[in-house]
């Protein structure tokens, strides 16, 4: 909402500067977003009359004018096509500033020039606001315009525009009078509202206009007034200037009046050419499905049955509250006008204007809610202006179809409730003053106030709404600063939150950078990940109205996000990448409205560890990432998991992937990304990735309950090197060693793997360090040898393992 400071001052006393007013309004709830100083770039530009014009001696397209500014005569050279003797024009004097130039004394083709005749463009004005013949030339003013008048005064540019940023509840401030009421409440100064009285002709409206509301739900009120002997022409300058200040283009007196009153009082009006209305009858009804109407902007609109239309018996004449129809539009030949001032249901107008993709100053106001009790007043105000401007004569009386009138609301306001909510005791007198300044009537009742809230403040229906009025006008920054009293509470993280924290710590400590990617993904990723058609990860939550195909579904796996980011980094020549993300994946659940959201850890590594003169860098491979996952389990005190070869996950290399199982559940998958998948993501290097179901992991993480006492007796170490077939998994051997090692075996460590010359082809040697220990005694050699032999025998039976010589 653009508010002219000059115009506003007509309605309310403003003893402060525009800047201070803006500050005070912003701090009380009606934010001033910007202060625009109109004409601030226009200096030393005045009205002047062209006395004589003579040809330029050296140029065909230029002329030399002798110009009278009222105080001096000046010679000016111009090339303007529409220059004439006797014209009153705007002259930028030597030293003048315009938005894009400074005027200096100049010689044009040898002839001295003391200024410049101005066009709209040069003044930074919209040429469309001026008559056609002036749009490509200089501006021209009536012959009786006084000379030497500053352009700002002449065009009303000596004004300041306050641009309001209104919150949705303050629809009452979508009018000059509404803003004036707010200013009056904020500054506590007097309102000076326009007095409205209509001079009517003898002709009565009775029998001339009939208004039928078929949809009282959607149209709460419809006021009509009739204007005769209409003389269409331009509206007066002062009105045009105010419209322009508000950002509305002047069109003709009749249209300008409707716009002016809308800006002044907030009530959108519509003017129909009465002569074109069939049977002088207005019917407010729903459009028929597919009904068509040319709107004022000359676009054919196809209407639907949830749209409200203003019709005559022949068909639609306007889309209610949104835009008029071309057919009943006011034209130069219009002689009688039916003026509409109506109330339409906000939600209906909102839907219609959205569905038609047609927004207007009018629809915007209806949408936010206007004052249903202001319709008649606004119609009268428009009639008064039309009559005063001599643009028409007002037929006596009006039609007011108002099916269920409602009055003001009375709300009980309790001072102790104000104290409770706001936290400060506002004196009763002050409360009363605030209410009265807002224009609300107040009665005292016991210790309380009964406040009568006018319908223009549709945002106020509860006591809390009034408390807010008190708080904001008392001043938020005058409210003291306290801290909550009452029972103390304990702030702590839940076990899950603490575990997630530990996981973030561990992952970063392991050298991975945390990333955050969007929860959306393109379903194409399922193909890029090689997922078979029946893979459960293809069942995703679909967004009904995504911004793009890239964001069509919610992720069921964090891999695509990680691979995308990897690809983006590698495209930028960022090498040696190690990254992870902790976020939710979304799994639809049959029969449930909401999907299951599973907290998931994803990690990728690709490239090498850092190296230098001191340490060789090496590839971050499967075992690198596996080591991180094992560290994570250790950090969370999780044991008893196993890594099982995974050939069925098509996103991964079939020979280099594992499912991680814990308590008979898959809790993670880890492996090298399948080369065709890396190719799909335009990754050139091998990528290792893992995806971990953190819910299951955290669930399994019991935390440390009791410590184990430190051993009192020494341990004994034995190494065992065995030869087995190449395809035997080390994990199985380790399991067998543990199984057969008995209570004495404390630790098994695989410290070497060898394949090569020393070993038969197709076989490999595994070397284990075994640690034996008892809690209650020092072990004897025999005991350890027994345990060792038991392991050896078991391995030789299960895996045909031979001790390596």
């Amino acid at each position, binding site marked *: 909402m653009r508010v002219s400071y000059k115009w506003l001052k007509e309605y309310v006393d403003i003893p402060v500067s525009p800047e201070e007013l803006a500050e005070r309004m*912003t701090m009380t*709830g009606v*934010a001033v977003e910007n202060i625009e100083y109109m004409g601030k770039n226009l200096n030393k530009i005045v009205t002047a009359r062209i006395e004589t014009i003579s040809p330029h001696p050296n140029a065909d397209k230029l002329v030399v004018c002798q110009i009278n500014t009222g105080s001096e005569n000046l010679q000016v050279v111009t090339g303007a096509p529409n220059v004439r003797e006797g014209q009153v024009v705007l002259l930028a004097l030597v030293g003048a500033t315009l938005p894009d130039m400074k005027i200096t004394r100049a010689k044009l083709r040898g002839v001295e020039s003391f200024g410049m005749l101005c066009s709209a463009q040069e003044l930074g004005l919209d040429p469309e606001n001026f008559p056609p013949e002036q749009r490509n030339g200089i501006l021209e003013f009536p012959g009786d315009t006084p000379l030497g008048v500053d352009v700002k005064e002449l065009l009303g540019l000596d004004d300041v525009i306050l641009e309001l940023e209104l*919150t*949705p*509840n303050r629809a009452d401030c979508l009018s000059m009078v509404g803003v004036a009421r707010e200013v009056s409440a904020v500054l506590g100064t007097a309102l000076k509202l326009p007095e409205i009285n209509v001079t009517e002709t003898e002709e009565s409206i009775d029998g001339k206009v009939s208004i039928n509301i078929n949809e009282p739900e959607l149209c709460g009120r419809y006021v009509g007034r009739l204007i005769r002997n209409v003389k269409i022409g331009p509206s007066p300058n002062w009105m045009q200037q105010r419209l322009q200040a508000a950002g509305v283009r002047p069109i003709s007196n009749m249209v300008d009046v409707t716009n002016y009153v809308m800006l002044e009082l907030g009530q959108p009006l519509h003017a129909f050419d009465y002569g074109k209305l069939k049977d002088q009858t207005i019917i407010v009804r729903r459009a028929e499905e597919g009904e068509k109407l040319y709107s004022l902007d000359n676009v054919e609109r196809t209407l639907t049955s949830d749209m409200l239309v203003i019709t005559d018996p022949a068909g639609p004449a306007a889309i209610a509250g949104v835009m008029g129809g071309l057919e009943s539009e006011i034209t130069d030949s219009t002689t009688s006008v039916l003026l509409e001032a109506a109330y339409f249901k*906000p*939600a209906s107008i909102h839907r219609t204007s*959205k569905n038609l993709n047609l927004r207007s100053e009018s629809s915007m106001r209806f949408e936010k809610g206007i004052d249903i009790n202001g319709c008649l007043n606004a119609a009268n105000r428009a009639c008064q202006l039309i009559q005063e401007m001599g643009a028409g004569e007002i037929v006596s009386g009006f039609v007011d179809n108002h099916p269920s009138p409602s009055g003001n609301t009375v709300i009980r306001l309790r001072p102790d409730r104000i104290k*409770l*909510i*706001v936290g400060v005791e506002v004196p009763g007198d002050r409360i009363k003053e605030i209410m009265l300044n807002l224009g609300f009537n107040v009665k005292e009742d016991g210790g309380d106030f009964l406040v009568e809230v006018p319908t223009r403040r549709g945002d106020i229906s509860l006591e809390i709404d009034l*408390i807010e009025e008190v*708080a*904001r006008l008392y001043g*938020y920054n005058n*409210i*003291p*600063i*306290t*801290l*909550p009293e009452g029972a*103390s*509470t*304990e*702030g*702590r*993280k*839940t076990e899950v*939150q603490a575990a997630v924290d530990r996981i*973030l710590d561990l992952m970063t400590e*392991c050298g*991975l*950078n*945390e990333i*955050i*990617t*969007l*929860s959306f993904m393109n379903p194409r990723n399922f193909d890029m990940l090689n997922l078979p058609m029946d893979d459960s990860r293809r069942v995703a939550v679909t*967004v*009904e*109205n995504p*911004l793009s195909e890239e964001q069509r579904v*919610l992720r069921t796996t964090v891999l695509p996000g990680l691979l995308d*980011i990897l690809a*983006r*980094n590698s495209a*930028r020549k*960022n090498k040696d990448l190690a*990254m*992870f993300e902790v*976020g*939710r994946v979304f799994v639809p659940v049959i029969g449930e409205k*909401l*999907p299951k*959201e599973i907290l998931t850890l994803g990690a990728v590594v690709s490239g090498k*560890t*850092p190296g*230098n003169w*001191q340490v060789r860098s090496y590839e971050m491979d499967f075992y690198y990432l596996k080591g991180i996952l094992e560290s994570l389990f250790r950090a969370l005190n999780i044991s008893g998991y196993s890594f099982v070869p995974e050939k069925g996950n098509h996103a991964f290399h079939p020979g280099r992937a594992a499912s991680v199982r814990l308590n008979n559940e898959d809790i993670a998958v880890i492996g090298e990304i399948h080369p065709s998948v890396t190719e799909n993501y335009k990754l050139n290097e091998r990528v290792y990735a893992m995806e971990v179901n953190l819910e299951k992991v955290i669930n399994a993480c019991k935390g440390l309950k009791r410590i184990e006492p430190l051993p009192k007796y020494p341990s004994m170490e034995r190494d065992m090197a065995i030869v087995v077939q190449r395809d035997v998994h080390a994990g199985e051997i380790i399991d067998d060693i543990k199984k057969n090692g008995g209570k004495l075996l404390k630790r098994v460590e695989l410290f070497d793997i060898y394949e090569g010359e020393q070993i038969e082809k197709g076989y490999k040697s595994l070397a284990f360090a075994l640690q034996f220990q008892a809690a209650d005694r020092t072990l004897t050699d025999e005991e350890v040898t027994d345990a060792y032999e038991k392991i050896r025998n078991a391995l030789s039976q299960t895996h045909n393992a031979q001790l390596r010589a």
Partner: protein
Amino acid sequence: MKDKLNSLKEQALGEIAAAGGLAELNDIRVKFLGKKGELTAILRGMGTLTAEERPLIGQIANEVREAIEQAINQKMSELKENERQEKLNKETIDVTLPGRPFMIGKRHPLTTVLDEIKEIFLGLGFEIAEGPEVELDYYNFEALNFPADHPARDMQDSFYISPGVLLRTHTSPVQPRVMEKKAPHIPVKVIAPGKVYRRDDDATHSPMFHQVEGFVIDKEISFSDLKGILLTVVRQMFGADRQIRLRPSFFPFTEPSAEVDVSCMSCNGSGCRVCSHTGWLEILGSGMIHPNVLKMSGYDPEQVTGFAFGLGIERIAMLKYGIDDLRLLFDNDKRFLAQF
């Protein structure tokens, strides 16, 4: 004999002084003081001495032994010290060579900011709650007092999944969810951090971003308490000399509502590019929980009151680290992430 002893002493001391290593010194010890050493050899002749001479010579012999031992010990520590010095000299390294490179991972800046906010509120006795990102219209709007035809409920602004189900547009739905569980229990002090979604994607909007919701419900919680908590939090987050300023605003689920500005940390309130020359930075929205919201979720607004606030994490991260393009936060460039 006395002369023999003295000359032995002289000889020993001379050899000790000349000894060049620990081994040599040990040989000297054996040579002079060992069981078969020279001193013992001399002392074997004690039998030939008179009773008067014997203690005298014995004393001298002891003195000689002590002198030699002392000299050996002294020499030994000298030699050890020299040897150590020599070893240390040999071990000198070039300390200017770069160290072993370790991989260091960093938390994402948004996580870091969230962590910091969580810590502040934990210290103030708040618990941390979470809610679903795919949310029912009921919790996202209705239970928060949004009227049925509120523009925010448009398909225009929210991502819909199915009728009545959408991606939450703010963390506020955690309010009614927590309230339903806790009512009528008081006091309630909760923050709810998380991801939220709106249908916007440009230089200043991401379709997914992060908020922290916070709310307190108790007997006699007032707007002045809200101011107190916010000031405390702002000062912990942005420094002890920050000021706050509250401007009336509008949210369907709070009333009175306020936008909260913090005095610009870049210029200290005097006006600069960061704060658009206003001296203030808008950082959060807040207000007293609307009585309808309390009522719908099981609290009696005549018995308890509460306040709520919500802040955007991206904005705070951008202010804190001088990030001028929101998209950098979701770009995840290694060179960006490594800086935090």
